[in-house]
């Protein structure tokens, strides 16, 4: 774990779960694996607080536990799964995707499960139905069956999955523990469980209950408490917990990225073709595959929505255009069935990552430096003189830009000696760019950026805490006055308690915080792309 990753994990844990969990979490990340007693001793927190924090982390799937080094008889050891903590940054994107695919119901289901780590199906359905009912006009309520149907759709398309059963200490778990290490903190892969996507048969009928709108705060807590204590009521699906399948969401994001890249580079119709190809091979392609399943042109034509027979030769033209494109999104693997085509997933990811790197260099150093960078990516190794010639940039400026890129570690220097004593006059100095290490470097920069953004937002909030509290109090007063039907004069009097400069200050504070939050979301998109690329190179090894 790098410094920046640990720092970002700490900030995310603090934002969602408070200071105590942050302390416990960061210490556990830094130490690797620890037992409960060691953790409590080293963080100097009371044992109960440490227990509570670990409960929270285990509930959300961020901490795993297993038999320690001393075997099943020894104390249990805990370790944190950093990747899972980073997913917290992406929660809005998951929820928005669920909304775009399955509407408001899907959005609320995913939101509830994300916020609570894992839930049973019955409690999810009840909570979501209640929330939807609350937003509906008076007299209507949401039926449980509709929520159940959306839930089953989410499970069928693998966006939700069952939590894997715990491997009991000492006995060998079913399937996926590959490493025979005694430190058995490897959790069982959820996919190895045969019932991973099987819905439990529960008899769930009813409708969402409407809360009384006059006691919003308390009712919130009461309803929330009811949803929680429902876990202890006997449901038919006790013990079957559902969690969000992050990998499936990531595959979806990756497909989206490829489709939008194709539509930017070529045109809308080609992106439609690629979208169809990806959709057809969604279920058959394993998660880390380098290519999708081969699809024949006939199948693609049948699956495309516009099915006029004139369009068939046009489809063939588009496919050959896609195959010939230097971005290599689509490849041809055979000629049967009118031509067998695959989408090159790993190569597409590599190209997208490369485009990201080039864009970063362009925005930070200018378009001429970007030209040099692209040149080096393409031509691999070049001498100083060759760089100047190929890039058509005068020597002095080229030298300047190269040294700047070198100092930022985006470009590396490779020495090739002619003689064994590495004499500078008899050594070739070649500039080169390696895509994978540069992508890793940029990923660390991104983590640092998000950490900085969060810290700045916390600082801004802290600076203006007094003002924010005042405005919240005044809003509460206004709300209560309006509820009891006050006159307009009273309302304006209360509103004037915030002076105009304070109002401006509040407005600019809100603007800044929105900007910082938006930037976090955008940097997270870059993080996702780079991480997918790095993972794809590791998987193919």
């Amino acid at each position: 774990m790098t410094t920046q990753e640990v720092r970002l994990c700490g900030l995310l844990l603090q934002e969602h779960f408070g200071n105590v969990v942050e302390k416990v979490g960061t210490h556990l990340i830094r130490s690797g694996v620890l037992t409960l007693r060691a953790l409590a001793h080293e963080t100097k927190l009371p044992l109960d607080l440490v227990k509570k924090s670990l409960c929270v982390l285990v509930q959300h799937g961020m901490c795993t536990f297993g038999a320690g080094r001393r075997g099943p008889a020894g104390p249990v050891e805990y370790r944190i799964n950093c990747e899972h903590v980073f997913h917290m940054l992406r929660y809005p994107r998951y929820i928005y995707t669920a909304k775009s695919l399955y509407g408001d119901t899907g959005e609320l289901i995913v939101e509830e499960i994300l916020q609570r780590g894992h839930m049973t199906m019955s409690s999810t359905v009840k909570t979501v139905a209640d929330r939807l009912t609350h937003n509906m006009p008076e007299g209507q309520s949401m039926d449980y069956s509709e929520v159940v149907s959306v839930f089953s759709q989410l499970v069928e398309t693998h966006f939700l999955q069952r939590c894997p059963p715990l491997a009991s200490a000492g006995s060998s778990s079913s399937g996926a523990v590959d490493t025979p290490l005694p430190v058995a903190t490897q959790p069982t892969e959820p996919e190895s469980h045969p019932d991973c996507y099987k819905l439990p048969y529960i008899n769930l009928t009813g409708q969402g209950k409407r809360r009384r709108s006059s006691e919003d705060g308390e009712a919130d807590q009461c309803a929330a408490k009811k949803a929680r204590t429902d876990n202890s009521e006997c449901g038919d699906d006790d013990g079957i917990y559902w969690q969000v399948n992050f990998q499936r969401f990531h595959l979806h994001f990756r497909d989206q990225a490829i489709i939008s890249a194709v539509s930017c580079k070529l045109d809308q119709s080609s992106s439609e073709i690629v979208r169809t190809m990806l959709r057809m091979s969604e279920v058959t392609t394993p998660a880390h595959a380098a290519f999708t399943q081969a699809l024949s042109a006939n199948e693609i034509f049948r699956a495309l929505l516009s099915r006029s027979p004139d369009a068939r030769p046009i489809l063939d033209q588009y496919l050959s255009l896609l195959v010939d494109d230097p971005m290599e999104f689509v490849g041809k693997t055979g000629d049967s069935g009118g031509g067998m085509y695959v989408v090159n997933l790993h190569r597409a990811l590599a190209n997208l990552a490369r485009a990201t790197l080039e864009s970063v260099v362009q925005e930070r150093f200018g378009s001429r430096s970007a030209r040099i960078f692209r040149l080096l990516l393409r031509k691999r190794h070049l001498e100083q003189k060759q760089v100047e010639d190929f890039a058509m940039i005068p020597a002095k400026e080229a030298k300047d830009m190269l040294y700047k890129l070198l100092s930022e570690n985006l470009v590396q220097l490779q020495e090739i000696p002619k003689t064994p004593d590495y004499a500078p006059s008899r050594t070739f100095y070649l500039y080169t760019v390696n895509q994978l290490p540069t992508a890793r470097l940029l990923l660390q920069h991104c983590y640092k950026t998000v950490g900085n953004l969060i810290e700045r937002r916390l600082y801004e909030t802290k600076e203006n805490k007094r003002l924010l509290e005042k405005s919240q109090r005044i809003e509460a007063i206004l709300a209560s006055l309006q509820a009891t039907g006050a006159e307009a004069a009273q309302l304006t009097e209360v509103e004037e308690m915030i002076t105009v400069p304070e109002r401006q200050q509040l407005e600019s504070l809100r603007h800044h915080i929105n900007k910082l939050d938006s930037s976090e979301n955008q940097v997270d998109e870059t993080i996702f792309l780079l991480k997918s690329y790095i993972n794809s190179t590791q998987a193919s090894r």
Partner: protein
Amino acid sequence: MAGSRGRGRSQFSFSVDALGFGRGDCLPSSAHTPSPLYPPMQFRPVPLHTGEEVDYMLALKQELRASSKNLPFHIKAARTKTDVARYSDKYQNGETKNNCIEWSPDWSRMPKELCIKVRKPRKTVIGAKPQLTRKPKAAAGKEEVLQKLEKREEEQHSEEEEDEEKKKQNEEEPDADEDYDEEELEDETDYIMSYFDNGEDFGADSEDNMDEAVY
């Protein structure tokens, strides 16, 4: 290497062309200090994405942040008693205690050593007077308390009957009565709880103690 130096005065040990600068060119000055914390940017950054999707995700993010503070997963250390024990401590509840957890996880999915007492939500014991001695494991459940009271005081019978009726009427709306109850009849004091003001400094320094060790 030393041998070749004497041969030609103007011959350096490396060819200057390979390095890209000529003789007599002034080199950029070497750095004496670490680079500044906020280095000046050469180009302005590209503006952020805008659009409906971006706005929606922004709103989602802020909502999630706000709501996660209210969930029971947001753990706050219990406030340490900074000065003398006060009479009001007996009647202040709703404060988090370190030794209980505010939600009930599935203990079968957690290691046994993490098991901790689950804090039961405050039941709406309407009208029934709680025990005079507050034991930490308070007997939850209205029936038990009612039975105890029946044993203790008989003149309270009529009052209890009234309150039981109220309870049946208001079973679907426990909130209002909870308000009424906590305000008026809590714990046998004669004082209405909301009138009791601890002052601004009471508990205001709980955030300050976060960084230090909590005992």
